[in-house]
């Protein structure tokens, strides 16, 4: 019992320890190598970091639930892009333009609805066909991206609404709008996963689907809800990001699914399902953003950043495996 508790603590606390190591490393290395003379641990810099974590972070929260279920969703990047287009384009529709700033909540609604509908498509196919979520969402990733290009060809879709931009750039209690969205979404999903029946069932299904069925849990509808949820979150991420930027390219959001999965996995959630935590995913998201920013701070280019993140991901999973094995051995007496 005690040793199991210890192993759990190491596993759950690991990502935060890693973040501390990163902070120390970049602060020290920053002194020696930095291209600017601004300190890395600068308060504004950290606030900005949180804000920049939001788009991938909000998606990663949803991905955590999908992965605890034992599924995966590769189509979130495409859902992100399509929702963004709906958001910006809908504001140019004549009846919307006539509404003035009231068009904003309506446009948000359209974008979020797009995400939910696309997610429902995924969930429904997974439920009714029984095809693996990896395959289903691989297909829908291509399909949804196709829709993105059909919408406006290779052209970017743009619309700038200054009220919206002001809202997106606002700071409340020091934190940016995007950060608030990330934190509130994180809090709600944490409650969902730790305190509600839905969360309980998600872990049960991911851990042992057959036992969950035998306990009377309706697995198919459960999956559908979760795919709708991650669709909603991908759209929410788009709403947060494009309210500020005002222009979406048809290639936007590509590889977001992989970044989200990376963050989730760094946070310790298992690909096989049944185990994971929303809070640790937030840690994973922040750890990645820290790496990106930190490496940039000491003068590394994007390619190097990707290489390092890749190496770290593999190292972390290796360590996790060692830890798990140790835990199992100790239990098998």
């Amino acid at each position, binding site marked *: 019992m005690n040793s*199991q508790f210890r192993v759990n603590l190491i596993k759950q606390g690991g990502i935060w320890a890693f973040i501390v190591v990163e902070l120390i490393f970049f602060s020290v290395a920053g002194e020696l190598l930095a291209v600017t003379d601004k300190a890395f641990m600068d308060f504004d810099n950290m606030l900005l970091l949180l804000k920049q974590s939001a788009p991938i972070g909000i998606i990663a929260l949803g991905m955590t639930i999908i992965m605890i279920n034992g599924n995966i969703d590769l189509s979130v990047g495409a859902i992100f892009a399509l929702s963004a287009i709906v958001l910006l384009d809908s504001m140019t529709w004549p009846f919307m333009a006539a509404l003035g700033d009231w068009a904003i909540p309506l446009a948000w609604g359209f974008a979020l609805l797009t995400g939910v509908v696309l997610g429902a498509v995924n969930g429904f196919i997974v439920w009714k066909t029984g095809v693996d979520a990896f395959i289903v969402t691989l297909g829908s990733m291509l399909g949804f991206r196709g829709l993105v290009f059909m919408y406006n060809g290779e052209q970017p879709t743009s619309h700038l609404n200054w009220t919206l931009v002001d809202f997106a750039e606002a700071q409340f209690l020091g934190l940016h709008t995007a950060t608030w969205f990330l934190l509130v979404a994180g809090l709600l999903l944490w409650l969902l996963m730790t305190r509600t*029946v839905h969360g309980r069932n998600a872990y049960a299904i991911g851990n*042992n689907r057959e036992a969950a*069925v*035998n306990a*009377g*849990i309706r697995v198919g509808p459960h999956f559908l809800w979760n795919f709708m949820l991650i669709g909603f979150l991908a759209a929410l991420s788009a709403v947060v990001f494009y309210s500020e930027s005002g222009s979406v390219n048809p290639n936007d959001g590509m590889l977001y699914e992989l970044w989200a999965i990376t963050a989730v996995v760094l946070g310790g959630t298992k690909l096989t399902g*049944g185990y994971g935590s929303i809070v640790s995913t937030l840690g994973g998201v922040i750890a990645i953003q820290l790496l990106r920013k930190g490496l940039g701070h000491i003068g590394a280019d994007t390619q190097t950043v990707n290489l390092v993140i890749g190496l770290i991901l593999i190292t972390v999973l290796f360590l996790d495996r060692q830890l798990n094995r140790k835990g199992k*051995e100790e239990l*098998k007496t």
Partner: protein
Amino acid sequence: MTDQIPALRLEGIVKTFPGVRALDNVSFEVMPGEVHALMGENGAGKSTLMKVLGGIHDPDEGQIYIAEKPVVMTSPMQAKANGVVFIHQELSLADELSVAENIFLGELPRRSFGRVDWQTLYDATDAILKTLNVGFNARTRLGDLSIANQQMVEIARALTVDPRAVIFDEPTASLTDAEKVVLFKVIADLQSRGVGVIYISHRMEEIFKITDRISVLRDGQYRGTLNTAETNEEEVTHLMIGRKLDLSRNESHHEMGDVALEVRNLSCGELFEDVSFSVRRGEVLGFYGLVGAGRTEIAETIFGLRDPSSGQIFLNGEEVRIHSPQDAIRRGISLVPEDRKAQGLVLGMNCRDNMTLPQVDDMTAGPFVSDGAEVAIFDQYRDKLDIRTPGWRQLVGNLSGGNQQKIVIGKWLSMHPEVLIVDEPTRGIDVGSKSEIHNLIRELAAQGYAVIVISSEMPEVLHVSDRIVAMFSGKVMREFTSEEVTEDSLIQAISGISGDKVA
């Protein structure tokens, strides 16, 4: 036997894990040509001892001797090279490969440039298969074989090294009676070749049939060795658990209530046909038959996991249609499935959450699950069923088989079901917990539950049932009351010989 040297000898083996002394100075030997049973409750240290022998665990102290030569086992490979091979309970074979490739996996004969020497491979395999007298050949795809035949492949693999000692770990767990006979012949054959056989099993019947000596472990300690011919089940059980196991016939008589569940002419494709039976409140109805007789499938149909092709199900006299486990659970039908770990429990979840899983929907306060209500249910049924766990936070995967089974039973009892179906109530459960589960089943009936017990163990069926339904090949052959049933008539019924013809 005494003038020979042991094929394999373990001396003073000590293995500790953090907090547990899993093996405490265990010594054990097997002579050439001997079948030596290793017995003990789950958690007594059998598996750990075998892992030490197989080079998976390093012992802290002690020495392994092969033909009195000290050896060090550091890997399964090395164990095999030393002539010690394992036939595991769970087979580790590749379905898509041929029998020959499976047998020589990792050691395929080669020609130049790394090409496989198929001819040599198939010839060598067929030579081994011939000694086992099996009905398939080297080129058969493994996945096309029955479990029993796959086990033969595993045994054939052991024979490629000319073993000194072969360890069988619960080899009959998934075999039919006919297949067991074949297995026992193979074991006898190994014996005549001078191989030492270690036989691990919970099944007394088999142990007394095929072994020469029985060694018993309890709590990681060696408790003694008995000559099979000079002992009996009681003595062995006593060594294992320190008390006796009661497997007498069920003779309790108490009031029975109305019919709770009635099944009329139920069929499901080719799985079972025209099955009718009923069970009253306060009654235990036993289902006995061979593996594959359709008993589990009937339970699954009543529980809504399969759709029947025809027939009717009545609950409290009213016809019901059940299309899913949700339907069944709502109507008060619950199923304790055959394979506890794969079908009954979420191993990575704690005890409490497992117990409340089907009813957690009804235990909410606002949007959230009420911790207090859950703990209350858990505490109540932990005490009622005497579940031994350090606390509700303990992961179910860490409990012993008996306690796991009690969690599954408690899960349904806490919902006050109309009918409780228990499929193989004591599979893989040690002797001590077995009688607890048996008593529990009897007690539930006495409290007025209608209980259906499906079992492949005759003593168990006889011990717990008020009535017994004997099945063969998807059909009900005969129904017995506990007064009229005899072991012979039961065996005849489940072998397809109708009771009437015998009488």
